[in-house]
């Protein structure tokens, strides 16, 4: 259940949105409402909500001033306003959504669904970070947690043959023959696995050195992995790669 705060100078607007969320939208609970940015900041500090519905045009301080008053924005923001012209500025700040008054119920439900999904992902990522830190502190626990669309997948590092990067995605190739896709770039795993004899042989490949069967010399050459896949070694990385091989 998401917790929400509504900041709007208009009482009826606050009450209407609160009732809409309470009676027509699932998975959200309004924990506080505020009639100004100043009172909104107090409510946010007190309640630590998941999402803030924020009006923009308010007489004393406009909605954007909220971001000057709060150091760490650890909640999602959905702007609610009758002013369409603020949309671009809203998205440049931290807005996850922008709802034009009168609020359309369908769009409100979509905004809540998006917020919920983002909060869930953030939670998984946070858990992941904690896990990685724990793992680094205790090398005997040699597993890696990777976040997928429906949760965390735990993989023993010794079961990873190599990783291939493709833009914002990374593909894990495992001894079991599985291929797992993760929406993170390869660099993140390079940092994570550098202590476990993984080496970036190419901008698109990070290999587990213990899973190499053969290195074939060439301009950069290529490596044949334990599952038979060939992985190119870039010319630029060849020297460092050979140095790393000699230390194995």
């Amino acid at each position: 259940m998401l917790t929400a705060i509504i900041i709007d100078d208009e009482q009826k607007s606050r009450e209407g949105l609160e009732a809409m969320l309470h009676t027509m939208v699932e998975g959200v609970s309004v924990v506080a409402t505020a009639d100004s940015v100043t009172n909104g900041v107090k409510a946010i500090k007190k309640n630590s909500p998941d999402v803030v519905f924020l009006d923009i045009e308010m007489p004393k301080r406009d909605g954007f001033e909220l971001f000057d008053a709060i150091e760490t924005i650890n909640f999602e923001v959905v702007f609610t306003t009758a002013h369409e012209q603020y949309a671009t500025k809203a998205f440049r700040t931290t807005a996850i959504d922008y709802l034009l008054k009168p609020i359309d119920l369908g769009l409100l439900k979509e905004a809540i669904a998006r917020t919920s999904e983002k909060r869930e992902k953030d939670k998984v990522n946070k858990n992941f970070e904690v896990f990685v830190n724990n793992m680094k502190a205790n090398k005997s626990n040699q597993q890696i947690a990777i976040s997928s669309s429906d949760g965390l997948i735990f993989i023993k590092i010794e079961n990873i043959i190599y990783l291939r990067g493709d833009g914002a995605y990374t593909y894990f190739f495992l001894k079991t023959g599985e291929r797992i896709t993760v929406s993170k770039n390869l660099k993140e795993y390079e940092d994570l696995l550098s202590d476990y004899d993984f080496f970036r042989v190419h901008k698109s490949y990070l290999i587990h050195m213990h899973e190499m069967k053969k290195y074939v010399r060439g301009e950069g050459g290529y490596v044949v992995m334990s599952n038979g896949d060939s992985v190119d070694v870039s010319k630029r990385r060849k020297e460092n790669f050979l140095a790393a091989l000699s230390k194995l």
Partner: protein
Amino acid sequence: MPNEPLHIANNLLNSFKAFIGSHFALNVVNSIQSDVILKDNASAFETLQLFNRVYKTAIRSSNEHFVDLETETAFLKDYLTLEQLRFPGLKSARITTGNINPESQVPSFVFQSLLENGLLLSLANSSGKIRIHINQVGDEITFSLKLDAKTNQPFHTKVEAKTQLAIQRLELLQEHRYIRYQLDWSSDLFMHLTLSKI
């Protein structure tokens, strides 16, 4: 007005568009939606009635550079009541009239813009305490706003685009010798418009 310059006609059209297409209309509909959700039928009905009158008057005024003072005053009072329904802080705001001739003519879409600007300023600086007075001495009609509090913000420092259109409208009408006007808003508590039709 016969053979009126195109830019005056454009200004009237833009003033009308600014009113009906502004956030004001969307906020009123939002307010009605809230009433419906909260099952406050009486409030929804009252808001609809007021909005209906304001909207129809605005459509009628869009064809005329001048409207009679009786129509304009009723329009302003309905508009203010609508804003009071949305912002309870404005409940003490009142429009009073002096000795006016109801048939005297005033430019359309000018008083309302100045009033809207004043209401916003009063909500920001004086908890909605504002007095609005319309008076007439001979041919001269005055429209004044006074905030019942001290503020550091001069009236003219927070001017919405719509108000700028209204001021441009006054200037154009004066330039083409339809009216004479004088606007005093140098004080931070006070705005005073004097105008007379030529």
